[in-house]
């Protein structure tokens, strides 16, 4: 069996779902979310490069270079926002982000509370 386009697309799909899962399941730090975000965009890149080589067209590769750049810019801004967040909270736990919650959930009083263990930014 030779390796064809859709094997690459398959890998891209697996990576895509893994990164989405990583975001949904991960309850730890915001840095993990950033890593998953990067993975999401890289999965898309695999798709583009695979299709581009199948078509012998250049458009997909151009797309890839732009996506790489944009994802770097996005991560840079994300990191700075997280640094500001850390300065405010002293924690970057996802569970601690409970300032803004639905009034309906606070009535029931089972809104997630912060665990209190201060997680380092590293």
């Amino acid at each position, binding site marked *: 069996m030779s390796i064809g386009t859709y094997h690459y697309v398959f890998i891209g*799909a697996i990576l895509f779902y893994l990164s989405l899962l990583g975001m949904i399941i991960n309850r730890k730090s915001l840095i993990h979310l950033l890593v998953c975000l990067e993975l999401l965009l890289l999965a898309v890149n695999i798709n583009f490069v695979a299709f581009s080589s199948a078509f012998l067209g250049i458009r997909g590769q151009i797309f890839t270079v732009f996506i790489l750049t944009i994802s770097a810019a996005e991560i840079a801004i994300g990191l700075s926002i997280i640094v500001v967040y850390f300065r405010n909270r002293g924690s970057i736990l996802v569970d601690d982000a409970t300032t803004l919650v639905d009034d309906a959930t606070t009535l029931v009083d089972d809104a997630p509370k912060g665990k209190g263990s201060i997680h380092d930014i590293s």
Partner: protein
Amino acid sequence: MHAPNEFLENYFPILLFMGVAAFVSVVPVTLAFLRAKRNSYAAKTSAYECGFSPMSDTRQRFDIRFYLVAILFVIFDLEIAFLLPWAVAFKGMELYGLVSMLFFLSVLIIGFVYEWKKGALDWE
């Protein structure tokens, strides 16, 4: 431009693949959740330091300035991603390529001047 149809006949499995991919990526995680034995004890969770007992917490705080440098690095790192293909294809583009790249670089330089003047590059 028309789609090369006979080639695309092969794509039907992609839909199937997307389902399978979702399945494949969900299963190990779920299994790990359900099946994994969690008996953690002090020695297992502590950091491994060549047989010594750990001397301090391994989760040290990094100085925030490292992040700043990392952020600035990433931007200039990716500049190369544009410069390299440009350099390879430079012969075919003549003046147009040169001017576009000069414009691109000047935008970067404006940003660089800004962060320099704002003191983002000073360590102290």
